[in-house]
């Protein structure tokens, strides 16, 4: 048991001051009060220390003890993380429920990773091997299909003096011994890592493989690369959470870390109840078997909300180190920033913009810079991609969190209230959004689908921005005043909007579009445009094109043609040909 190092002198919400600063270090984990609540030292001054407490402080008194631990705030890493649901400081919520009932009480202490569960360990090193930090010592199957690679702590290196034979072990059992310098260290399957310190790697690779999400507006129009960072800002009700859920469901990452940071309890419950029943299209296994959930809902202690982001990213980096592609969703980074602001306010720090502390930008940068596609210490390569939701007050993108976030992400998916009101989902505004990964992932598309995706994508964007210009005119003088060629643009962009950009997350066929389907839909719509334009230029009236039955067929194709029925698109193309040719013939004669 840890020793008493200080005495509480002041309490205000989650912030506590105490005497005894000589005995603790900055960012050390401490236990606060007689109930030994979890806290972290965030300031030292003279004999005073300032602590942020990760649990409710009501009822706490001055004069109560502070216990030191000598360790920084850390997470436990090892087999058993997957399918877990933790709070912001990695306490397992199912165990808390078992012990305390439906409500979260204070002072809960449980091991994040089960000490009893046995894992079948298969060694990958032998005695006498020289191992460096991060080296893969052996593997266990964390689920039926997921191989968890047991790694040496990145800070250690040495010679293997003993390794456990194949067999069942708990995370507390020694599975290898490594001679580090003169000392022999016992290695278990469990590691601790300080959450605020990024796990090391050799070097960054270029981010040129897209993270495929099955969402057409993302993959086709604004792709994010594996190892990249994207932001989704939007006012309430514009679909941030639905978009985050869709990505968590369908992204082609091997591990998903989903952080519900200061958001709704029901949303986390939805994930918990839905994911075990959804099947990962790549492995055929339930989606839950690749997911780690961190749930610190809006009514849970605010300081733990601040920590939740770091807990999540550290777990993500751990799986990256094994050589996996990891996607991390943070919903919402604004609530995390508000937690910073609340603690900063209680510390009476000088505020910068809108009451946020001056170090807000720095903290955001630290977080987003932990994304990356890297060469790992053990020779594998893996990535962490970050998708952060931002909740700007009043939907105003000029507020500090959105603005600072924009500096550290390269992909911006701007949600739009007016699109959401018209039930155009995902309500991502194609004129306000951008992706800086377009050129980077072009080669991948060429190789994968053999088509010039970027040219087609840019052509579609060109039409959409033309539409925006034309609709200004339409608003003033009505559509009839436009020449047919311009009205043809409006016909096509309606197909792009309704047939491609709109995607229904709740409909089985439409929820996930393969890249092949995405590109084929785009190709069809552009083909329709070229054919239509040619006919219109001959003077055919636009309303005849508008009334072609194939228009409806194209709009409905997203939900009538499954990813496996690609041949049906050929039929649709044939219909375009037939109907357009007929129209052309009729008109010319």
């Amino acid at each position, binding site marked *: 048991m840890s020793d008493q190092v200080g005495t509480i002198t002041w309490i*205000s919400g989650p912030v506590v001051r105490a005497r005894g600063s000589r005995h603790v270090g900055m960012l050390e984990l401490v236990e606060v009060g007689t109930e030994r609540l979890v806290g972290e030292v965030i300031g030292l001054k003279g004999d005073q220390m300032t602590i942020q407490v990760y649990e409710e402080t009501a009822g706490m008194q*001055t004069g109560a003890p502070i216990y030191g631990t000598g360790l920084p705030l850390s997470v436990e890493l090892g087999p058993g993380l997957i399918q877990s649901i933790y709070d912001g400081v990695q306490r397992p919520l199912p165990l808390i429920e078992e012990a305390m009932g439906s409500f979260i009480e204070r002072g809960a202490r449980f091991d994040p990773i089960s000490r009893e569960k046995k894992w079948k360990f298969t060694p990958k090193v032998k005695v006498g091997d020289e191992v460096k930090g991060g080296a893969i010592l052996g593997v266990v199957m964390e689920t039926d299909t997921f191989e968890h690679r047991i790694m040496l702590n990145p800070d250690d290196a040495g010679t293997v003096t003993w390794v456990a034979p194949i067999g069942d072990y708990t995370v507390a059992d020694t599975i290898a011994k490594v001679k580090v310098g003169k000392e022999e260290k016992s290695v278990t399957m469990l590691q601790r890592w300080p959450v605020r310190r990024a796990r090391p790697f050799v070097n960054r690779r270029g981010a040129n493989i897209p993270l495929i999400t099955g969402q057409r507006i993302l993959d086709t129009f604004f792709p994010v690369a594996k190892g990249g960072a994207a932001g989704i800002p939007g006012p309430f009700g514009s679909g941030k959470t639905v978009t985050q859920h869709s990505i968590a469901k369908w992204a082609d990452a091997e591990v998903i870390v989903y952080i519900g940071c200061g958001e709704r309890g*029901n949303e986390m419950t939805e994930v918990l109840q839905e994911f075990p029943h959804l099947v990962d299209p790549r492995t055929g296994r339930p989606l839950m078997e690749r997911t780690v959930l961190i749930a610190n809902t809006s009514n849970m202690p605010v300081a733990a909300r601040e920590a939740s982001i770091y807990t999540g990213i550290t777990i993500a980096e751990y799986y990256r180190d094994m050589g996996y592609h990891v996607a991390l969703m943070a919903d919402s980074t604004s609530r995390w920033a508000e937690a910073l602001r609340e603690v900063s*306010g209680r510390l009476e720090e000088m*505020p910068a913009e809108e009451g946020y502390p001056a170090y807000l930008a720095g903290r955001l940068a630290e977080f987003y810079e932990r994304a990356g596609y890297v060469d790992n210490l053990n020779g594998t390569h893996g990535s962490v991609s970050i998708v952060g939701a931002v909740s700007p007050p009043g939907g105003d993108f000029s507020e500090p969190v959105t603005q600072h976030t924009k500096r550290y992400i390269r992909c911006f998916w701007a949600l739009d209230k007016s699109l959401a009101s018209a039930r155009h989902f995902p309500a991502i505004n194609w004129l306000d959004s951008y992706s800086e990964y377009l050129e980077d992932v072009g080669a991948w598309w060429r190789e994968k689908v053999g088509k010039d995706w970027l040219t087609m994508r840019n052509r579609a964007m060109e039409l959409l921005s033309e539409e925006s210009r034309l609709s200004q005119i339409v608003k003033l003088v009505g559509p009839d005043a436009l020449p047919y060629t311009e009205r043809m643009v409006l016909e096509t962009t309606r197909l792009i909007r309704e047939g491609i950009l709109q995607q229904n997350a709740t409909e089985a066929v439409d929820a996930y579009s393969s890249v092949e389907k995405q590109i084929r839909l785009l190709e069809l719509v552009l083909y329709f445009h070229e054919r239509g334009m040619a006919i219109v230029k001959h003077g055919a009236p636009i309303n005849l094109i508008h009334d072609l039955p194939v228009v409806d067929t194209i709009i409905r194709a997203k939900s009538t043609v499954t990813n496996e029925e690609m041949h049906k698109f050929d039929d649709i193309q044939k219909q375009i040909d037939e109907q357009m040719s007929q129209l052309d013939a009729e008109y010319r004669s």
Partner: protein
Amino acid sequence: MSEVTVQGGQEVVGVSRIEGPIVVVEGASNVSYDEVVEIQDSRGQLRRGRVLEVGEGFAVIQVFAGSTGLSIDGTRVRFLGTTLHIPVAEEMLGRIFDGLGTPLDGGPEPLTDRYMDVNGRPINPTARIYPRDYIQTGISTIDGVNTLLRGQKLPLFSGAGMPHDQLAAQIVRQATLGKVAGAPQTEGEDFAIVFAAMGVKNDVADYFRRSFTESGALTRVAMFLNLADDPPVERIVTPRAALTLAEYLAYEREMHVLVVLTDMTNYGEALRQISNVRGEVPSRKGYPGYLYSDLASMYERTGRIRTSKGSITQIPILTMPNDDITHPMPDLTGYITEGQIVLGRELNFAGIYPPVAVLPSLSRLMKDGIGKNRTRDDHPRWGAQLYAAYAKTQDVRALASVIGEEELSEVDQKYLKFGRAFEREFVNQSFTENRTIERTLEIGWKLLSMLPKKELTRVTLDEIAIYYKGDDAAN
């Protein structure tokens, strides 16, 4: 239930500072953060307060009834050694209390030994049941396109002078557990109702009381009243006291509880007042930086848990200052609640009741409570189609105002007609009209039938074949 008991009963005579509703006491030891105190002024009158901050030898106290009449020397502060608790009992239904849970109706204190902390505790997300059962309110704009589910928090965003009170009263009166369309209606599966008034006028509280009496619901209602002329600081506690009773009824007595909180905007102002007096760094419009967390600590006390059949459904009412939906109160509320029902000034002017502005309104949970085996198979797509068509109507209206109706295309003219009929027949209904879900769906299809089939891309072709009644023979 963790009862926080420390050496209670410590008393200090004299305070060192009084500023607005905040009092600073020196010379107290072993004071707990968030502890309740009893304050006696020089004439012997008692009022209650709560510790906001403790340091060595001093405590900052927020006085619920305000500091009027308190003096530096003559004030005695007794620390009660516990956080704020209220008595809870089923017998509290049918009763009226003040903002701190003290009876106002002349009746006795509730007879119970069960006291619960007004702050509640967060529900463990793993212990929740995701809401799936819809509540039929008999109001088309809610049941049809913004369906309310048991365990959902769905606020009414309104403005001064709009009929939000009537709408809330109508919801409370008509709410029953929803049935599949066509199934026989069973009368009155009972909701218990917990009503909290914060800073509203006496008339408003009276209106609700009358409305509960008329519908015969009064015996199922517990009212917590902090009216406009009551101490503002008490408002911080009022919704929490109400929710504490609601939690007891829902999770221990297994009842379905509908909580109406009005008006949250006044709550926010009380919170801002305290924050300002304490000299905290303000964020937007002078509201404290923790407004989001503070609101969440109440709104999140909604839902269902696995260990009880009961549920808490919340309908907070907010009047948006200057009808501004980006004001911090509606804005942060919208980020926490599962959707919002927005009332529209223009519809109200046009004499439409309830003036629900359909486009900015939303129920996030709707998708999980409707459709096959819940309402009717076509409901989700039908709703999306109505939304899309009505959104298009707005564009057409804007165009018509520039070029004139006559210049509109034939299809656009149909949209104009659709829009008018939508507001008159779908949105508009009388205060006493209780529509079944099939009636609502029927009206919707009748309206959609005014448009050409080709415009209806959100519904399936099969659904058009069954429900479309238009004379659009062309396609």
